[in-house]
């Protein structure tokens, strides 16, 4: 499954703006905690920022906790957007 390019761009924008990350580091396999250096506080802010950017609610806390990589995140956003 490929992620919609528009969604991908918007998620990467949230990551670069919210966490001042270099876009070059945002490869699909990059892990949010180990590779990108985010932590538990950032995870809270990531949800807030994504909810604002996409005007949706990430209510499935289990699914949010399961996110490990940039690719996981993109897929979660796409699933949530499509209501799946």
């Amino acid at each position, binding site marked *: 499954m490929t992620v919609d390019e528009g969604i991908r761009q918007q998620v990467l924008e949230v990551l670069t703006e919210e*966490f*001042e990350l270099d876009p070059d580091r945002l490869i699909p396999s990059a892990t949010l905690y180990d590779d990108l*250096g985010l932590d538990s*506080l950032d995870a809270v*802010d990531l949800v*807030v920022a994504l*909810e604002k950017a996409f005007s949706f609610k990430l209510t499935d806390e289990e699914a949010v906790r399961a996110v490990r990589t940039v690719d996981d995140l993109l897929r979660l956003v796409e699933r949530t957007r499509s209501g799946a």
Partner: protein
Amino acid sequence: MGLKRVVITGRGAVSPFGAGVKALVEGVWQGRSGVRLMEDWRRIRGLKSYLAAPVPDLDPREELPRSLRRTMGDMAVHAALAAREAVVEAGMSDEMLASGRVGTVIGSTTGSPQTYEDFYRMFLPEESIEEVKSGFFFRIMSHSCAANVSLALGIRGEQWAPASACTSAAQAIGLGYLLIGSGRQDAVVCGGADEVHHTVTMVFDVLKAASRRHTEPLATPRPFDRERDGVVCGGGSGVLVLESLDSARSRGAEILAEILGFGQVCDSSHIANPHQDAMAAAMRNAMTEAGIESTGIDYVNAHATGTLQGDSAEAAAIGAVVGRPVPVSSCKGHIGHTLGAAGALESIILLEMLRRQEIIPTLHLDHPDPECAGIDLVREIRPARLETVMKNNFALGGVNAALIFQRRSK
């Protein structure tokens, strides 16, 4: 007096003159004012003072990574920049900071008032916390500056945060002195911070104690002047590195001054009105602890904020304690009343006076008020032999603090 002698080995400042001790000292010695008109405050119904001495915009991104900044309001950013400057001047290694023998004591009136405003603007319309970021609490908590500075510098000793408005930094220096004197810590990074915000100026405006000299923002506040009309609030952070004399000597650190005494007296007669007896008692306690007679005080750096009652009460208290026309000036005309930062920023100016052997004047003191007689009000830069000096700070809520510094460690 503690078991250990306590000296000052580092200074850091963010002030209305910008970042750094150098900017602060230059601004003061050039006789400049950091006060300006706050035009956008005119929108606030009932507020009658639109004057402040804010910190100019700074970009802290290079010095403080996002992971640190996310939990910092402006006051914590300023405290972290000042603290870093202070430990660099002290030549303190990362290993020493992390040793557990170094602590942090940094106070402020409250947490970041701008963050409070941002939060309630978001929360109140629909009573929603859905957009609250994780850093919010760490910006508004009363120990925001102490916690964030400890984190930024990797300090692992004791952490304290005296929250007593205008005496926060004076108490922080006093507490640092006690912690080192008692042997609990070898060194303490101590000071205070506060932000310019309309809700802060409002506190004084409600009490009819905020300046309204809007036609001449560069001529107010006017401590000890007969035309003084109240406080102008300022912002920033001052930080000192306090250290035991033994520790400073063993590291070969340059000693800027020794702290000889700290007096602190609670005035329980009124929550807001200044009382000269309590001011005098704080000064006497500091002098007794220092073992200094009144003849040994070469200069007093006054709290004097430019209020009608406060300045005359302090002048009378100093006159009563020192018993001769001792040279006195206030820094408030230059940098406004920096509240939680005042005790530390003004101490840094005082340390520079000790170094230069010069007394700075009270800015805007054109017509000394006869109600403030009995002391030698300094009105221009004056060369002087300064060995032992006193620093006063007083706060709403009845806190009266005095510190005694000596030029070099004998």
